[in-house]
């Protein structure tokens, strides 16, 4: 009998968290969700159980309470084989420009807190000698744009943290770090935005790409949708002197 592997999804109340957890459960992984909003996370857990027949655990976690993160990792019933952070907060750019507390919350939610938590898992995985860490960042972190640079800067920081962590882990052995950069995804976070249909993907698509990159054909950094990789490559090539004058 094979013992099934386990995955912990941080941000389990979100639509991408739900879709990702479902993807793993469909492939017979033991799934746990961590979220601040445990009611919504439990709704997702119930859905996954109804669909797959597999029980899904829910852990309460307020990721912004960073002094409790170490205890959260220590208190888990078992260290998972894979940990995935889909934590994110788009915030409101205009508000972040005048409200320092809002800007700080966006930065902490997208960069500080998930980086610290995944750093703790990296240490625990390194001590065990195995594990896969997946951080869902964003294409918004590839270049700062006037319309959402507070969010983008935080995601950029998170992407760089994952890059450095991957480098450190690769030199010591068995722990893998995967960076996932979705573009536009139709979720609760973006429900109020008008998104360009050809570039917009479903949470299920993000989930499928995460599973493939983490568990099937290992990759270090993925863009969800090749079209977005192309778009971001072009955006990255625009000289700053020109870029700063564009409305993006």
């Amino acid at each position, binding site marked *: 009998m094979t013992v099934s592997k386990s995955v912990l999804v941080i941000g389990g109340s979100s639509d991408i968290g*739900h879709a990702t957890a479902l993807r793993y459960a469909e492939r017979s992984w033991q799934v746990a969700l961590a979220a601040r909003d445990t009611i*919504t996370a439990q*709704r*997702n857990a*119930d*859905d996954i*159980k*109804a*669909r797959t*027949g597999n029980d899904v655990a829910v852990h309460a976690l307020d990721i912004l309470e960073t002094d409790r993160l170490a205890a959260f990792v220590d208190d888990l019933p078992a260290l998972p084989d894979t940990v995935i952070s889909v934590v994110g907060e788009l915030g409101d750019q205009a508000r972040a420009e005048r409200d320092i507390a809002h800007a700080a919350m966006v930065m902490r939610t997208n960069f500080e807190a998930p980086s610290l938590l995944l750093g703790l898992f990296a240490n625990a995985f390194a001590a065990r000698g195995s594990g896969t860490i997946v951080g869902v960042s964003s294409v918004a972190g590839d270049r700062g744009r006037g319309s959402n640079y507070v969010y983008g800067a935080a995601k950029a920081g998170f992407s760089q943290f994952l890059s450095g962590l991957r480098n450190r882990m690769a030199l010591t052995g068995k722990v893998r770090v995967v960076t996932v950069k979705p573009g536009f995804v139709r979720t*609760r976070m973006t*429900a109020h935005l008008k998104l360009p249909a050809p570039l917009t993907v479903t949470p299920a698509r993000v989930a499928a790409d995460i599973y493939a990159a983490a568990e099937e054909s290992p990759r270090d950094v993925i863009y969800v949708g090749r079209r977005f990789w192309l778009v971001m490559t072009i955006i990255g090539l625009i000289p700053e002197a020109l870029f700063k004058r564009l409305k993006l």
Partner: protein
Amino acid sequence: MSDLAGWGNYPRIPTEQLVPARAEAIAPLLAGRSGLVARGQGRAYGDAAVGMATTLTSSRLNRMRRFDPASGELTVEAGVTIADILATYVPRGFFLKVVPGTKFVSIGGAIAADVHGKNHHRDGGFGDHVIALRLMLPNGEIVTCSRHANAELFHATVGGMGLTGIIVEATLVLMPIETGWLVQETHVAEDLDAAMAALERTAAHTYSVAWIDCLARGRALGRSLIYAADHASAADKDRFAPARDAFPPQRRAGPSMPAFMPSFVLNPLAVRGFNALYFRRGARQALTPQLVHWDPYFFPLDTIGHWNRIYGPRGFLQHQCVIPAANARRVLAEILDRVARRGSASFLAVLKQLGDSHGLMSFPLRGYTLAMDFPIQDSLFGFLDELDAIVTAAGGRLYLAKDARQSRATFAAGYAGLDGLRDIRRCIGATDKLVSHLSARLGI
């Protein structure tokens, strides 16, 4: 405010659209608003799911709650679709007891319209397999309704077109299947008598339906292909296709209609040609049983995304009536004769037997239902009024999920439950609160 229409793209009406993320988010939206109605996937053809002021779309109430494989009982949020349920549970060996002609409908919508399938004559409507539902009343309170608790409300909500509250959750029964395949037989009927006889003869099969060539006239009036089918047993599947998967996954989506077709595409000559080819192809398969995948069997049109666009930007109307069995032969002949003489292009015409229904406002009654699509032209409305007069005189009625234009008189003549529904609406405070363009048009 943005324009919203049903599947027929007629009428298009401005409405505020809200997409609550969870059932708990609905009550605050109800407070301080009136003229709302819930909408699922927008597959009602006319104005049933466009709110007078506000339309509450259920697309994000898409989580399943629990499933018991021993009893087959499945509880889902109202925005879960039939497509989602079948994609999830066919591989586990379960099927819904009743499915309509498209899988892209929400469970809330399927209950509100008490949709029927090709097995209505045997197994009843969608609502007959709903054990319980959770309904948010206009005051924001959520009540559980079933045949035992709040039975009157349950009875009015099945087929009640969303006018008794917002369905937020439902418990259904799934049935076990041995395979995801069907064994289908095709019968050829050269005229209406033969078609009706074939439907009666094949009524012992789980599913039976006739595709009818509305352009055939004279002695060929009512010529049809009758499809009868049953779920394939494991032995059937092994006999026909031993190498195939017993529970095949849903088919991948095919091409989508990229834009509205110009109206000349659907000219009578083209439809006549299509129908002739379709009839000949069907006749070739006659009486040779075939093994058919569940997805194309039940949902042939779903493989073409946005097929409604073939009728052009003005949209189309579907006229679906039911005629009590006693008058059916004569009345159907008269309707078909008028349609054939008008020569208007309807290549999707379906004839089938229906049994009794149990919702206060459910469409089916024991007899025959005929559904025909017509591209919108100025002359169409008067023509359909004439058909309505024939239907009403025969004791029949029109399907509200397809309706965009029937008169109040036609409606009131067909639906004896109307006064009862109005009473319940008054009683729960829904009269001004829950109003769709359909309910306002028909004075519900």
